[in-house]
């Protein structure tokens, strides 16, 4: 207990194992220690477990082994066959998904206020005021009463980020949030994330955009075969990787791009 409370990590992932069914093992003993204020970008080949890792950290998946602590508190653990998730700790984490996942039957403002009103019991008027303020910050004040189907992909994704921020998360997870966007809409979403980064928001993200990874990350983790292969500052992992597998991956990514 004493050791726990002195834990300086924001997220500590220990020996994480996760599979789907008996034959597919996605994460095979993964260890990551993320310090407060870090911006971790996870890169790696498809099927290497990047998105699964984020989903596990969000508390969306069962795990088969290992544990995760958050700010020194036990958060997720595998207890025999059962996964135990502390839902109070989970509320401190926000996530944005590849496919927006806005609530299509609710207006933009209602999307933002649903959780604060229903989870925290915030008065509607106050939540709406905060919601409008966040939308204004994101240049979306005119869209408060629009429905998601009336927005562009970039606008939807910015609303999704705003919705997550309404709950004042201590960690933001971004799972390939620009992958579904038309190329000309990517920048507006990345700008919002860069602004959050500049304000010191801790974040963990998966992206295939190496330019963005280099600009936003304070640390890059190369994940393949369900384990961490290489872990270091962006200049090193993206620019001069030590591991052969990382080098191969980076070469291939830039080859395709070039």
């Amino acid at each position: 207990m004493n050791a726990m409370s002195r834990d300086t990590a924001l997220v500590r992932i220990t020996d994480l194992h996760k599979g789907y069914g008996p034959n597919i093992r996605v994460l095979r003993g993964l260890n990551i220690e993320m310090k407060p204020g870090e911006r971790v970008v996870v890169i790696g080949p498809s099927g290497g477990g990047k998105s699964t890792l984020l989903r596990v950290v969000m508390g969306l998946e069962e795990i088969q082994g290992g544990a995760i602590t958050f700010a020194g508190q036990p958060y997720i653990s595998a207890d025999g066959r059962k996964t135990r998730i502390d839902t109070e700790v989970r509320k401190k984490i926000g996530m944005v998904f590849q496919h927006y996942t806005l609530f299509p039957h609710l207006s933009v403002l209602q999307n933002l206020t649903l959780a604060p009103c229903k989870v925290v019991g915030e008065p509607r008027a106050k939540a709406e005021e905060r919601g409008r303020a966040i939308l204004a910050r994101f240049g979306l004040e005119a869209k408060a009463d629009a429905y998601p189907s009336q927005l562009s992909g970039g606008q939807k994704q910015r609303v999704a980020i705003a919705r997550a921020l309404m709950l004042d998360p201590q960690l933001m997870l971004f799972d390939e949030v620009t992958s579904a966007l038309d190329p000309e809409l990517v920048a507006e979403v990345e700008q919002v994330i860069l602004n959050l980064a500049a304000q010191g928001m801790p974040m963990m993200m998966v992206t295939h955009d190496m330019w963005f990874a280099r600009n936003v990350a304070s640390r890059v983790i190369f994940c393949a075969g369900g384990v961490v292969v290489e872990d270091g500052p962006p200049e090193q992992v993206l620019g001069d990787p030590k591991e052969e597998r990382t080098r191969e991956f980076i070469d291939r990514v830039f080859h395709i791009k070039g």
Partner: protein
Amino acid sequence: MSLDFSILLKFADALALGLWMTLKLTVLCVVLGSTLGFLIGLARASENALIRVPASVFVEFFRGTPVLIQLFWIFFCLPLILGVELSNLASATIALTLYMGAITSETFRASLRAVGREQMDACTALGLPRRVQITNVILPQAVLLAVPTLLSNCISLFKESALVSAVGMADLMFIGQNISNNTARPVEVLTAVAFLYFVIAFPLTRLVTRVEGRMLRKLAA
């Protein structure tokens, strides 16, 4: 053979009464049946087998037997078992409500499923309690998604309701048949009856197509 459609004018009032009865019965059974279908749809999505299995058996039974035999069974057999007389309106209402319940439950079940796994993930990521997930996110979307198919179900019921003439209910079909038999003018009368069903059902089928397009656009987010 000479056709004389003018004879229909003599029976316009009777046909109107029959159509009125058909519409009343349809609306009544749409309201009762969709409510039942909604509840059965929820029951079939339940994780509890004691709720799910009986609901599924009910649906499969009603989907797997002709409406006519359901109607006859309720009209002739149910009174014997219960030991009470059932008016033909009551038995027709029960039969069509149960039938409508069975088919709309499938509609609701499909629309519940169509609200994707991703919406649930978003709810979890926002920390929404299960109750809020269901009442504020899943059910409203499921109901909206169900609207076009429900309208189709209503049109089917409107047409199937002609079967109640077989147990002597004075609906459009029954009155049409009577007039046809008494006047020996089946071509004129039965054509007119078919036309009356069509003028009600056709605009509704057009409406389904339009509503479907709008719903899909609205919910594609």
